């Protein structure tokens, strides 16, 4: 049984925040992770910065650039996790990374590192179902969840993707890359219903979610909500406060307050 399931809190609605490792600094990343857990995060998506993040919008691209400028890499990102654990992060941690850095490590070495560093799952946004056979096998062998994505265009693909999905199933809310969207597609509910019907693992929705109102509406249709760009954007805003050690705790407090405001519709207590 994977560590993902063991670590997953029994929240009614899963709150799955995304932050980029090393943005604006790896020490801050650890503290942000803790803060998110405090505000009820059920799972943490830890993003590995990448030079060519095809699935990301400008906000996460910029975070990638800042993190790369700090010297962040896939190995360093992975090695951040034990530090988080040490500081008290207990929720499952999913490594969000593009495929190429994984490939450079080598798949076997990658999974060895992942397991060794207490990472619970892996999400590779540019590795679709058909290309992921080997990696899913390795994930299973290493007891690591391999998070699959389905999109509004997936249609008849949903079935096969769901069948092999582990951890949670990530529903992309709308066509496009990550980012903040004012409105979500009108037919999102029917899409989510269809996906939920296809699987027994939790179904989370992401891409474009940034307000408590959206969270309020969506929690009816989904088991979990992924929030990325809105959070990363807040980190960018607080960047200088967070980088300065003297003002960091103040920054973390602002960050927590912001997170609380978005996820307010979700009850923090476990079911």
């Amino acid at each position, binding site marked *: 049984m994977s560590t993902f399931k063991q670590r997953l809190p029994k929240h009614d609605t899963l709150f799955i925040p995304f932050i980029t490792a090393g943005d604006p600094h790896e020490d801050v990343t650890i503290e942000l992770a803790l803060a998110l857990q405090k505000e009820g995060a059920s799972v943490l998506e830890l993003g590995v910065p*990448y*030079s*060519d*993040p*095809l*699935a*990301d*919008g*400008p906000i996460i*691209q910029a975070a990638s*650039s800042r993190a*790369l400028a700090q010297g962040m*890499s*896939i*190995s360093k990102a992975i090695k951040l996790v034990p530090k988080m654990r040490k500081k008290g992060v207990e929720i499952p941690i999913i490594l969000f990374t*593009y*495929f*190429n*850095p*994984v*490939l*450079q*490590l080598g798949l076997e070495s990658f999974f060895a590192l992942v397991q060794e560093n207490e990472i619970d799952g892996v999400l590779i*946004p*540019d*590795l*679709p*179902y*058909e*290309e992921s056979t080997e990696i899913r096998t390795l994930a299973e062998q290493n007891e690591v969840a391999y998070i*699959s*994505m*389905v*999109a*509004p*265009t*997936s*249609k008849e*693909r949903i079935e096969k*993707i769901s069948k092999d999905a582990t951890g949670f199933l990530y529903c*992309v809310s709308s*066509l*496009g*890359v990550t980012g903040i969207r004012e409105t979500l597609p009108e037919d999102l509910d029917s899409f989510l219903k269809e996906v939920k019907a296809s699987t027994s693992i939790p179904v989370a929705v992401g891409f474009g979610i940034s307000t408590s109102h959206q969270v309020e509406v969506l929690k009816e249709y989904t088991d979990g909500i992924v929030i990325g760009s809105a959070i990363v954007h807040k980190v960018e805003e607080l960047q200088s406060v967070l980088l300065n050690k003297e003002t960091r705790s103040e920054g973390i407090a602002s960050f927590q307050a912001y997170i609380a405001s978005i996820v307010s519709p979700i009850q923090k207590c476990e079911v």
Partner: protein
Amino acid sequence: GRFGEFGGKYVPETLMKPLEEVEKALDEAMQDPAFKEEYLFLLKNYSGRPTALTYADNLTNKLGGAKIYLKREDLNHTGAHKINNAIGQILLAKRMGKKKIIAETGAGQHGVATATVAAKFGMECKVFMGEEDIERQALNVFRMKLLGAEVIPATSGTKTLKDATNEAIRYWVQHCEDHFYLIGSAIGPHPYPKMVRDFQKIIGEEAKQQFLQAEGKLPNTVIACVGGGSNAIGMFYDFIKDERVELIGVEAGGKGVHTQLHAAKMEKGTKGVIHGTLTYLLQDENGQITEPYSISAGLDYPGIGPEHSHLSSIGRVRYESVTDDESIEALQLLSKTEGIIPAIESAHALAKAFEVAKTKTKDESILICLSGRGDKDVHTLVNLLERKEKEYEHI
């Protein structure tokens, strides 16, 4: 969707369905004689194919070795081989009922070709181009606008071709329902590398026929430059089965492959994924893609088409590199001896060919893909040669 171990579809899930649709439409189109007929009709009556095969008699005599033949893709409408593929893909877009086209461009040649066919087919066209390239290639930007295309600056990353491609893909992810992404080289996720090859292989098919007619036998060597590699795969494809024909792909060696400033993916790159395909590319030890360099805007792409990686791995094509300086020398030599100013891209193939020609006998012959004309590069050349003159004066 593989060439040996290379290729594949490494894209966000959102694009899988659109890619499947492209693949399906392409397979059907390729079975449909009417589609092929329209493609060939346009190549002939719009782009001016067949392009000539020119025997470079002066140059052959001057070098004193193998006979040198040039396949004149520079004579195509818009001045390069790019239009072959653009015509094929826009016909596919039409067949799929799409009316909006996306493209990426570096120096602007593929952007111009795409804007051209979009105008011809009355389609809306958005061309993504790095902000820096927009400045460096102002004339091509103007051409695209004149053709009715919208040029969208890519402001992320290094603001060049790599990032323009990223932006184009991101835009496509968002608008894949009604947009067709018209990729300009034999790169990207399946079925693009195959599709681009199939729309470019006419180069080699024509050249082979023409060469047989001129010489009564096959050439000993076929040479083409390789950036993404669409002219090269188009030129090589029909010769792959002719095992005695030596095939050489020429990459941009920039300031030298011993420096950091080159675009020699085969010689100096490693396997990885770029823009949805598994192939050789330039990257650092953490798998971050690095910026290539070449004096030729059409060759400084960090990846290479996956079929080339395959052809290299099975030893069917040899990939070598040529520096900026060697390519410029070749460009000048061809201009002065044959009255043909080649694109700097094509001059890379020429430089290698001239080197090889000298080592061969007069009974042997080399066929070179002259992928584009050099008019677009005259600005670059003026600056370069003026700078060289000044440097010379300082000595």
